[in-house]
């Protein structure tokens, strides 16, 4: 999308963003030796590209039951700027096309339920298929059929209906669609799928598997093969040995009830270096935010982080049973990871972050002001998704359907890559030079080093790459060095201005873990309090009558060259950037305003959209 003149020459210059890599034994060593393709937009200082790697088409059993009729082909057409139709009859279109996209259908029951509904195969006669060919507008029936299929797999019976030919045909279509829509330099597609591994009590251990190239395994590895993620990684390892490179991105750790980042493995054994190596080799990233909640952290885990309660879904899916916070959130996992590193010499939770949507309409999310739900006919209007009242009770209180009300219009992936090609973007994912946002196209740069340029240097990015490590990298800290950071964010031109730029630090000392939030740049020249490390409030507000926002407050860009006041080169630590927009209306408020009713009192009326960078890890020199 961005094509600086700089990139015209045909030159191959690989920038090492991680000069200190040699000391870090657990880094994945999967560097590809294939030559880098040069497009006219090639930028050695890398460009921000935006995409969604978590989208479901009609081949996903749940998407189909929800009414989904869009194929992978339709999904890619949509991502490139085309229009597709929602099952409820309205059109869906993006204002700005995606730079990259991956359709990631559930591997278990891949294409099966659709085949059952088509009615011409023996599969339709299986008891689990009852009613699948006569779905109607009754969403409760759809919900109970969905439940039946999920339970069927949980009971260990899923293999009965995994007709190989059906799965293979669907998978072939997914692979072919991804390859056909790939336009190097303009639009990148990834062959992908969702591994929907699940714990004994329905805990979410889901991962999206993303393939680097145009070739994929015969059929995807699914939860029918195994619910143990280690078996998935072993499958990925063996593919890699055969030349098929892939990575897995866990999501919805927030509803894993502590299992996603558990301190023991799936079978309850303590973690060891073999486990950590295999996990990090295959899982360089996690999805920090998506529609079914944001997984950064929880107020119970981060009581001193006033912004920790953002778009949380802290209950088991479809219920009100609270989730165990330990093991369910990204920041705590990063902390547990460096504690493992400090005490046992391995880090199983050394991951960067992206956002993605998990949209089951084959589309991306529409944004707060244009949110049309993500579950087909189940949440296609305000009443169904809980923003508008169904009616009033005898006590004259509004009654709402609650299941989807806390879903967020969230999840966008950002990468820093030389050009918009599979190789370049995949390699950015692999080296964790990534960031996630709650929807807006906010850009975040982040570097650490001991010789970084001044913040207003004209060649800030070039010098920062040359003299530091970027997000996702390691800084080997030595006692004779001072560490500085460059953090820089730019707003989405179509979204609210930025309010504050923050660095989140996590560290371990004496067997304990600690975290701290530092505001490091404030909009409107607000001051940072030297004790609390917080910006003064810039006073930005939202008119909740029409959702208009303050036009004169906030910043287009925020940046800072920052020195950690508590820096200790002997500590294992990580740092990541969080950037916060001025407040704006939440989707549920937009729904209410359009319908001319009051927004729900028990939902936040406004939110502060945000972005998160991948961390930089500080590892003490031996």
């Amino acid at each position, binding site marked *: 999308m*961005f094509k600086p003149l700089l990139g015209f020459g045909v030159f191959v210059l690989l920038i090492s963003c991680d000069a200190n890599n040699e000391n870090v034994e657990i880094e994945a060593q999967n560097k590809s030796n294939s030559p880098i393709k040069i497009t006219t937009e090639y930028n050695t200082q890398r460009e921000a590209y935006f995409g969604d790697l978590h989208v479901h088409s009609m081949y996903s059993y749940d998407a189909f039951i929800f009414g989904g009729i869009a194929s992978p082909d339709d999904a890619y057409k949509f991502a490139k700027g085309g229009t597709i139709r929602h099952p409820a009859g309205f059109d869906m279109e993006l204002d700005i096309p995606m730079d990259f996209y991956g359709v990631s259908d559930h591997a278990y029951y891949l294409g099966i339920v659709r085949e059952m509904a088509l009615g011409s195969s023996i599969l339709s006669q299986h008891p689990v298929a009852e009613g699948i060919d006569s779905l*109607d507008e009754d969403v409760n029936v759809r919900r109970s059929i969905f439940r039946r299929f999920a339970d069927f797999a949980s009971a260990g019976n899923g293999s009965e209906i995994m007709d190989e030919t059906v799965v293979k045909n669907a998978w072939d279509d997914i692979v072919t669609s991804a390859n056909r829509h790939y336009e190097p330099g303009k639009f990148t597609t990834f062959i992908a799928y969702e591994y929907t591994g699940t714990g004994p009590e329905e805990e979410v251990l889901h991962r999206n598997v993303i393939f680097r190239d145009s070739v994929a395994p015969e059929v995807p590895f699914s939860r029918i093969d195994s619910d143990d993620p280690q078996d998935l990684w072993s499958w990925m390892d063996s593919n890699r040995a055969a030349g098929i490179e892939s990575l897995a991105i866990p999501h919805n750790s927030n509803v894993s009830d502590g299992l996603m980042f558990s301190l023991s493995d799936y079978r309850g054994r303590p973690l060891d270096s073999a486990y950590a190596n295999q996990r990090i080799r295959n899982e360089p990233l996690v999805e920090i935010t998506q529609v079914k909640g944001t997984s950064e952290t929880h107020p119970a885990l981060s009581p001193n982080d006033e912004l920790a309660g953002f778009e949380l879904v802290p209950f088991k899916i479809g219920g009100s049973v609270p989730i165990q916070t330990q093991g369910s959130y990204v920041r705590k996992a990063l902390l547990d990871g460096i504690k493992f590193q400090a005490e046992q010499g391995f880090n199983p939770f050394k991951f960067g972050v992206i956002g993605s949507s998990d949209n089951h309409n084959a589309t991306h999310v529409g944004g707060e002001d244009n949110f049309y739900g993500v579950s087909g006919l189940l949440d296609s209007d305000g009443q169904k998704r809980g923003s508008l009242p169904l009616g009033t009770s005898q006590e004259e209180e509004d009654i709402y359907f609650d299941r989807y009300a806390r879903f967020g219009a969230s999840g966008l992936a950002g990468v820093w890559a030389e050009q918009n090609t599979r190789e370049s973007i995949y390699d950015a994912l692999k080296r964790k030079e990534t960031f996630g946002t709650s929807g807006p196209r906010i850009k975040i740069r982040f570097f650490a080093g001991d010789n970084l340029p001044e913040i207003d240097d004209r060649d800030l990015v070039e010098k920062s790459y040359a003299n530091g490590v970027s997000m996702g990298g390691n800084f080997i800290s030595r006692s004779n060095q001072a560490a500085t950071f460059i953090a820089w964010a730019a707003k989405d031109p179509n979204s609210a201005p930025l309010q504050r730029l923050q660095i989140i630090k996590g560290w371990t000392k004496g067997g304990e873990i600690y975290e701290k939030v530092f505001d490091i740049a404030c909009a409107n020249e607000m001051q940072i309090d030297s004790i609390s490390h917080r910006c003064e409030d810039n006073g930005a507000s939202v008119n909740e009558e029409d959702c208009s926002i303050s036009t004169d407050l906030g910043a287009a860009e925020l940046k800072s060259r920052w020195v950690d006041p508590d820096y200790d080169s002997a500590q294992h630590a990580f740092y990541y950037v969080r950037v916060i927009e001025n407040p704006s209306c939440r989707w549920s408020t937009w729904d209410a305003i359009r319908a001319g009713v009051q927004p729900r009192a028990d939902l936040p009326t406004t939110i502060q959209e945000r972005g998160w960078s991948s961390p930089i890890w500080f590892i003490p020199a031996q």
Partner: protein
Amino acid sequence: MAFKHPLFLFSILGLALFFFESLNKYDRQEITVTLSQQERLATLWETQTGYVATPEQLNSLVTNWIEEEILYQEALKLGLDDQDSIVRRRLIQKLSFIAESGPSEPADRSILQNFHQENLDRYTLPERYTFRQLYFETEAEADNALLSLKNGKDFKTLAKPSMLNSEYAYNSELEINAIFGIGFFSRLDTTRLNLWQGPLASGLGFHLIDLIALHEEEITPFENIQGQISMDYQRDREENARNNFIKELTDKYTITIELK
């Protein structure tokens, strides 16, 4: 697909009626799309889309069903079955695959070049622009800079560091709007080349823009996208092969669609 067009369907019906008596009945198989079958197709559509099928949609559903029935009958003739009706779909897929795979040799260069020529609209880049850009937070700053530029100051000394680039090449309207915000392109005067224009407001602040070059619509050379053309050709060929195959087979059938 021409075959799905109702006109095509009706012309087949017409032909079928015309030749009905003159042909030997035993050379032709009959396919009857019963009312209950039509109803089933309609219900399935409604179930999946939430909408009642329009007559056109119903037509195309019936047409699809006939296609499949024909493939099924042919598959049976080829002995791919063991008279087990539940493998119908499997057989259809098998025969469709044979049809789509067609001649096995890969398309040579001249065929692909022809395909490129015949589908140029698919391979044409839109109008694009190469320009320099200066970013300012306030309109006053931008005004001052514009004045300095008019007084001959080098634009590089005026550029304030930002996450935007100072030079962009070959960006389309869509790409320009992606960088600066929706609607920004319409503020650009694309008839003015080599002249600083602005300040232009964006979702980020204010900009001075110097359009250096306008690049007309351009056909992407065959050499640059041979791989993509090859995939498109393959997809088109498969579709055509399937359509032709079904067309050929359809001629062997008398089709009756029961009327209400």
